[in-house]
């Protein structure tokens, strides 16, 4: 176990080594823009982002530059993100999006930025426009609360957060600082976790439409279900070539879900199991 200080004036916290290692993960990102949407935008551009981060924040600097150079009317300047023809849900951690879209580590993650109004929009694959930073931050906390509710089977743990904790939590996620994040989570330790919240992500194709489908499942902590068994139970039409990946790591077929959760859960309190087909 590694020991680390959470910050000035804060007690030391013990962060498991494997958790620390998974938080250290980062991704190279190549940002592109649609020529018709942007003029004189400083693109393409490279960036580097934490796996725990989210698109609107990982690309905040680039987005700020693009908004000022766009010739599109202000009311149309809400952006959305696309990679490999898939309209991305920015609410998922960047690492999970990468794992489901680029299973063969074909870095960098190539993100195309679109302006709203010029793209797909249907109930099958709603474009998820990126709101301003405040709204995006609020959305993260809704996801975090949802994960915490499932983890503890109660909404009470969230009430343990103190006035400045949400800032510390948010900043730690964006910067990939596991010590600060872990320190805030210590406040919930008097509550007993009951389950592991899991999301299974899979790239699906319906006609010309490609989208990331998700399934949300809660696995009780006393369960001996393996990740492979969980996926087989909830996802139809898989064959022997389907592989599982969490935080950039291929998951052994006999790995227990609850063990994976302890080591590889994302900051929003969910374990993301990403499916891909092994073409080799």
């Amino acid at each position, binding site marked *: 176990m590694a020991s680390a200080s959470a910050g000035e004036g804060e007690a030391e916290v013990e962060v498991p080594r494997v958790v620390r290692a998974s938080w250290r993960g980062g991704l190279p990102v190549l940002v592109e823009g649609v020529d018709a949407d942007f003029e004189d935008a400083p693109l393409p551009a490279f960036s580097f982002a934490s796996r725990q981060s989210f698109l609107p924040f990982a690309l905040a600097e680039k987005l700020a530059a693009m908004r000022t150079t766009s010739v599109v009317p202000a009311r149309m300047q809400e952006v959305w993100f696309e990679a490999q023809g898939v309209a991305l849900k920015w609410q998922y951690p960047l690492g999970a999006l990468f794992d489901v879209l680029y299973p063969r580590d074909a870095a960098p993650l190539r993100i195309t930025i679109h302006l709203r109004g010029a793209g797909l929009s249907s109930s099958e694959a709603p474009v998820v426009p990126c709101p301003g930073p405040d709204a995006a931050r609020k959305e993260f906390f*809704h996801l975090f609360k*949802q994960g915490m509710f499932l983890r503890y089977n109660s909404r009470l743990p969230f009430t343990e957060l103190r006035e400045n904790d949400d800032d510390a939590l948010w900043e730690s996620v964006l910067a990939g600082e596991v010590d600060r994040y872990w320190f805030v989570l210590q406040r919930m330790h008097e509550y007993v976790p009951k389950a592991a919240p899991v999301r299974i992500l899979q790239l699906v194709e319906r006609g010309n439409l490609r989208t990331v489908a998700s399934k949300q499942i809660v696995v009780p902590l006393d369960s001996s279900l393996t990740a492979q068994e969980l996926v087989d139970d909830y996802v139809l039409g898989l064959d022997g070539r389907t592989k599982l990946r969490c935080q950039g790591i291929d998951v052994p077929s006999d790995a227990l879900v609850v063990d994976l959760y302890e080591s590889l859960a994302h900051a929003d309190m969910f374990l993301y199991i990403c499916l891909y087909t092994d073409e080799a």
Partner: protein
Amino acid sequence: MEDGAVKVNLVPANAPVLRERVLTFKANARVYDLHRMLRERLKLETLVLIVETCFAPTLDQELGDLAKNFGRNGTLHITYGPQAVFG
């Protein structure tokens, strides 16, 4: 992924009361579908949905998943209103 139906109890918060408070949806219907239906019925520009007076679900979540995870007595309880009155 799964078939079946989901009962959703819709509780207003600073919003008009629906004639039918409990609606039934397919389990694979998404929050997006409920959100769009309510916005049209209530003629609201903005609408916030809150599950169990705790959190706002994302639009792509399946109502069946939410009911399984958060439902009580076979019903998913969702509060709706023009702004975030909870959480």
